[in-house]
């Protein structure tokens, strides 16, 4: 190794505490990205495995646009010349008694064997093997199932070959292999039809086609035919916005990490400035110095990246679970297994560490290469120079802010453009930090002088004097705190908007059945209607279908009841909009309107049971049930269009002044319980929705915590560098009679001041960030409006975090003061 490089690298062990801080900072940033990306990828992989596994060898699937299809179609399909093989399927979610959901596939084992041969490698339970009759029990016992070998065996759940479900016990006959992440239960299709009261109906038919065009030409009308690729794309598309938001969040953590690297790299530049001058005077050229510094940065990136990869890998254990439950809550059931260990994770971590180090090191590197050896040999950079640089950076920041503003104002721009704008905004305000400090300095000096006396005044001066480092550390901290305020503001506003929305749409006294499971028998609905005194028995049906080849939801409602009892949030107009719905029109959610560019008064065409049907859009309403778009129509229109009479859920509305209210509610509850149907009161349903919401944002909260940890190291690093760099000044303080306590107080004041200023600035920046996340990112990602609800709690929590973090960050430097200050002498070097 060249001696020039060696002279730089030896600083790493010499300033071990700083090196460790930088490594930890890089590691935290890398861990966030690796953990999040790996978890998201694992979840998506698990999801595509599920799709692939369940698809088997089928090339296409055919189903009704919504709801189940008639069984007799099967024989016609089997006779079609373009069809090579058919396999009818009942595809449902089944809730276990412990509340968990499993995927139940009802199949015809004789037909399905050619489509999904892997499933039929059944491992029969010990006692089932005893005689042939038992082996055939899968076909003869109408509650017989094969369960996934990964299905968790919980005490009492199926210890005696019984799977306890909300639809009664099922008899486990054997176990099937399942490489997908989704727990699977297999049942004979006839038994499944009976279990779900689907006699005469199936959900879809999986097909092996030999001529797609020919087949589609005959079956297009009244059916949805999807190739396996289209099916996979439809499902993947549903997760796109979710994945993008996760990745952007983790990048924010790395972004803060880059600040930390910049900060430490800048310190390294300052502390190597004299060495650079010496080396240049000895004849070292710029390239040799750049290479030496680059090796130093890359070594830190290497260790930080590798450590971050390990931390990220362990983080996936926790994040994958969170992600799985979020996806299950929002989209479809998924239980992804955490990623398996691979050395490539380390390679990716190192790559990220290097990337972040180079990004954070590029400006300091430029500064080092431009070091004037004459000035370097004569001493430190002057304050006027750092002021000039701060002003220059501020100018750059303003230009970036202006570009970001243009990105925000671009009409119809993609969410990526929105993210670029948000990153630009954060970078822009960060670059303003030094300049803001210059402006605030005289006031801060006065305030700190009043609070902390002479040490307070000196502390304020130190922050100003060492703007190059303090400014960057504070910018990093400010970004983290702003993220905290911004994300909390966004989540809080979303939560409040959701509460408002629930108050407009979910106003029933009782809800019977669960929205995601079609399980309220029609005769029960009719039975409830006969109870006298109930204001409204509301039938609700929600199904997925395709609009312009994209997955959307269609809901069937009773317009008369909702007009009377619900108070929908309309983008335009009021409850008179229901009149149009009663006459066969539809109302669409805001997300549908934005996603497909459909406005009130336009028409939309949906594939119905008799072919395409056109509907007039009466109005647009605010909705948070799905970002993919929701079309709501009256039940009569729905049944006429899709021929689907099934119900997901029944809402009970009782007039507020009804004296029999309690009695009626009790009666309905009793009847539902007799039928084994779940009943929730309106407020219980609200609580459940909020619980799902809070679980969904658990990941966002964890990312926010990581960003604050990274920034914490940033402040600690800045304080430590100030201490190390100013040991000569400390010698002067000591000679003037400053006590160890006073110098420690000075360090503490510096830390507190940095934390407080960062927090004060983050109030404004965080609020703007919250508004940007709401008005730009959420709107472009999910196509729905979140109303901004200002709240004081995020500011209080962030303020406390800022104070605690800056106090915590000052502890180590203060310890160093107590340990070394009494020995510090006035030295020139």
């Amino acid at each position, binding site marked *: 190794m*060249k*001696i020039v490089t060696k*002279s730089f690298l*030896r600083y790493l062990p010499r300033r071990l505490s700083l090196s460790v801080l930088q490594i930890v900072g890089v590691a935290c940033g890398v861990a966030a990205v690796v953990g999040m990306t790996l978890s998201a990828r694992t979840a998506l992989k698990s999801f595509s495995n599920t799709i692939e596994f369940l698809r088997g060898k089928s090339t296409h699937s055919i189903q009704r646009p919504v709801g189940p299809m008639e069984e007799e179609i099967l024989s016609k399909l089997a006779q079609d010349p373009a069809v090579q093989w058919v396999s009818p399927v009942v595809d449902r979610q089944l809730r276990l008694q412990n509340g968990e959901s499993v995927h139940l596939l009802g199949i015809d084992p004789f037909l399905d064997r050619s489509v999904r041969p892997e499933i039929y490698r059944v491992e029969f339970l010990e006692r089932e093997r005893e005689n042939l009759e038992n082996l055939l029990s899968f076909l003869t016992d109408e509650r017989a199932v094969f369960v996934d070998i990964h299905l968790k065996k919980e005490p009492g759940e199926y210890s005696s070959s019984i799977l306890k479900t909300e639809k009664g016990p099922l008899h486990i006959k054997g176990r099937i292999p399942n490489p997908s992440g989704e727990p699977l239960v297999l049942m004979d299709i006839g038994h499944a039809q009976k279990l779900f009261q689907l006699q005469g109906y199936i959900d879809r038919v999986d097909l092996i086609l030999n001529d797609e065009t020919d087949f589609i030409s005959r079956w297009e009308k009244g059916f949805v035919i999807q190739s396996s690729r289209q099916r996979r794309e439809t499902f993947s598309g549903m997760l796109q916005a979710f994945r993008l938001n996760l990745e952007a969040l983790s990048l924010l953590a790395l972004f803060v990490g880059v600040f930390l690297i910049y900060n430490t790299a800048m310190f390294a530049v300052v502390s190597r400035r004299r*060495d650079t*001058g010496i080396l240049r*005077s000895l*004849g070292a050229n710029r390239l040799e110095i750049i290479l030496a510094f680059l090796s130093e940065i890359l070594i830190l990136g290497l260790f930080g990246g590798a450590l971050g990869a390990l931390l990220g890998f362990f983080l996936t254990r926790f994040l994958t679970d969170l992600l799985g439950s979020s996806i299950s809550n929002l989209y479809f059931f998924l239980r992804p297994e955490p990623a398996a260990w691979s050395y490539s994770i380390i390679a990716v971590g190192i790559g990220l560490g290097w990337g972040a180090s180079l990004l954070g090191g590029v400006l300091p590197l430029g500064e080092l290469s431009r070091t004037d050896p*004459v000035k370097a040999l004569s001493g430190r950079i002057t304050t006027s120079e750092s002021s000039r640089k701060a002003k220059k950076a501020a100018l750059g920041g303003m230009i970036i802010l202006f570009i970001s503003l243009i990105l925000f104002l671009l009409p119809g721009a993609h969410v990526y453009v929105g993210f670029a704008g948000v990153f630009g905004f954060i970078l822009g305000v960060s670059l303003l930090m030094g300049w803001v400090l210059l402006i605030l300095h005289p006031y801060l000096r006065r305030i700190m002088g009043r609070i902390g006396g002479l040490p307070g005044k000196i502390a304020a001066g130190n922050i100003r004097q060492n703007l190059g480092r303090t400014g960057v550390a504070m910018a990093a901290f400010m970004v983290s705190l702003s993220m905290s305020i911004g994300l909390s503001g966004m989540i809080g506003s979303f939560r409040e908007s959701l509460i408002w929305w629930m108050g407009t749409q979910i106003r029933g006294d009782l809800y019977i059945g669960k929205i995601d499971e079609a399980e309220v028998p029609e005769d029960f609905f009719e039975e409830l209607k006969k109870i006298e005194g109930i204001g409204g028995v509301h039938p609700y049906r929600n199904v997925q279908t395709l609009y312009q080849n994209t997955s959307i939801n269609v809901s069937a409602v009773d317009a008369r009841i909702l007009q009377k009892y619900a108070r929908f949030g309309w983008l335009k107009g009021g409850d008179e909009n229901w009149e149009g719905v009663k006459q066969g029109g539809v109302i669409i959610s805001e997300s549908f309107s934005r996603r497909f560019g459909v406005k009130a008064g336009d028409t939309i065409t949906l594939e119905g049971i008799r072919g395409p049907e056109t509907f007039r859009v009466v109005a647009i309403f605010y909705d948070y049930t799905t970002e993919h778009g929701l079309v709501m129509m009256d039940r009569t229109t729905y049944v006429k269009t899709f021929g689907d009479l099934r119900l997901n859920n029944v809402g009970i509305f009782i007039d507020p002044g009804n004296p029999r209210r309690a009695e009626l509610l009790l009666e309905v509850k009793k009847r539902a319980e007799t039928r084994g149907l779940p009943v929730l009161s309106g407020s219980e349903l609200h609580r459940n929705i909020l619980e799902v919401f809070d679980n969904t944002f658990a990941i966002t909260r964890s990312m926010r915590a990581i960003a604050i940890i990274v920034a914490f190291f940033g402040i600690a690093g800045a304080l430590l560098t100030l201490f190390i760099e100013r040991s000569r000044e400390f010698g002067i303080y000591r000679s003037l009679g400053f006590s160890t306590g006073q110098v420690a107080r000075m360090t503490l004041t510096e830390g507190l001041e940095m934390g407080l200023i960062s927090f004060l600035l983050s109030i404004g920046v965080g609020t703007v960030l919250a508004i940007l996340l709401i008005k730009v990112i959420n709107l472009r990602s999910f196509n729905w409006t979140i109303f901004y609800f200002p709240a004081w709690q995020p500011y209080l929590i962030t303020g406390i975090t800022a104070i605690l973090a800056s106090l915590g960050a000052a502890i180590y430097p203060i310890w160093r003061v107590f340990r070394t200050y009494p020995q510090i002498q006035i030295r020139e070097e």
Partner: protein
Amino acid sequence: MDQPVIRIIDLWKTYELDGSGVSALRGTNLEIKKGERVALLGKSGSGKTTLFNLIAGLDRPTKGRIEVEGQDLKTLGEKGRTLLRRTKIGFIFQFFNLLPTLTAFENVFLSLELANKPKPQLALHALKEVGLEGKERRFPSELSGGEQQRVAIARALVKKPSIILADEPTGNLDTATGNQILELLTRMCEESGTTLIMATHSPLTCRYATRILRMVDGVIFEETS
């Protein structure tokens, strides 16, 4: 008559300070011959260090011409000036300016490496010459001021440069140590035929010089007595 090893013609150096120009050098002229030992006397701020920086090509003059061994520094370019420092000029500073992360041996070897003569025995020999045998593996912080300056001398001379620029070489040492250092430095330069220019504000240094120059407000005068 020998060709001058350094020739300076009408040299000006003006710095911008708070919007106005301050001249550190004001039309200086100078010729120094090979093997001369020159003491450049002058008060703090008289322009001695500026002159050294310009001769070494670390800084650029506002006006005027500098020739080192007949080569105009201006025409050399950045690459040429770097090469000049690597091979022909040795620097000795008041505050030693050793690299704190390198041992005594490595500090000297660095000079050889940069001059493309990476022979460890030369570095060891140079340290022995300055009386630091056995202290090669010590870091600067483990050496006294005098010892650090010896390492700096070894570092400057090991590559056998034609010129040594010593900026206040004893300014940070006590008188006895300072004298030892000056004796060592002048002896080694004499033995190797190296031109030595010592910037100093101490008249005591003049005892070790063959020629004395005085610098006053950026102009050099020949000291005749």
